[in-house]
């Protein structure tokens, strides 16, 4: 049998937790429905929010791409196909060495990164997974239903050779020509 004193302590603890929960809930609803949060893309994230979201994205991609095994990449025909896919589907948001993205890609938040350093951050199977499935809430679309398996690996292969390209060779690779 608990003593009166123990009963009082438990009662106080339970009531305090309930009150704290109710206040937190009310505060959450006020923020949600008050519209105070600036959803505009001209206002930047707080640095720690950006960092947490980016880390979560990285770990999710690592985990989900883990089972994918990249085929051998980089033969010239594949790189040519990859360059055409890059030109038509990636360039407008990501740009390339010496080539600016279009205004669509300039003012997004989060900003679509340059892909010239992508191989420092991602393995080829991860680049393939991101291209195929996209990234929620980032503006990165999923290409699974719009590109063939061959095109997905081709554009992955092209991204892996971007660091070796200068402005001139990149411009030549994405020059206007036949569609993929």
């Amino acid at each position, binding site marked *: 049998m608990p003593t009166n004193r123990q009963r009082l302590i438990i009662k106080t603890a339970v009531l305090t937790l309930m009150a704290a929960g109710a206040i937190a809930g009310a505060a959450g609803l006020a923020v949600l429905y008050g519209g105070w949060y600036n959803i505009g893309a001209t206002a930047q994230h707080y640095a720690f*929010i950006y960092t947490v979201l980016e880390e979560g994205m990285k770990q999710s991609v690592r985990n989900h791409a883990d089972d994918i095994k990249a085929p051998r990449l980089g033969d010239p025909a594949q790189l040519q196909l990859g360059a055409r896919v890059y030109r038509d589907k990636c360039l407008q948001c990501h740009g390339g060495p010496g080539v600016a993205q279009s205004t669509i890609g*300039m003012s997004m938040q989060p900003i679509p990164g340059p892909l010239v350093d992508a191989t420092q951050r991602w393995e080829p199977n991860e680049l393939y997974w991101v291209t195929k499935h996209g990234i929620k809430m980032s503006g990165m679309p999923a290409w699974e239903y719009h590109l063939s398996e061959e095109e997905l690996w081709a554009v992955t292969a092209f991204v892996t050779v971007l660091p070796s390209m200068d*402005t001139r060779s990149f411009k030549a690779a994405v020059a206007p020509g036949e569609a993929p």
Partner: protein
Amino acid sequence: MRVVAMAMLAASLAACTSERLPGGVVGDPVRGKIALTQYACQSCHLIPGVPGSKVYVGRPLSEMGQRKVLAGAVPNDQAGLMRWIRDPQSIDPHTAMPNLGVTERDARDMSAYLLSH
């Protein structure tokens, strides 16, 4: 004593809130900071005060006010920095930094922000 402390506090607060521009620099650094993010500058450069990924595709833009020369070619004053931002190929034809079509006003405000941080 207390009055002096209050005055010093007020002065330091004022220094924090109002952006003080270095001599000869014009433009709106608050607007310039936003403009930097609207031309995707932070996608390649680390910029003081702008959250983003750890990227080193372009050089970090910290302490731009202390640099003497841009791209080893032009003096790092506001005019030189604006020219670099608007047309980098006119200074270094081989640079991988693209011409992003920055307007004169936006480049002025961007340079005002960069030169005061």
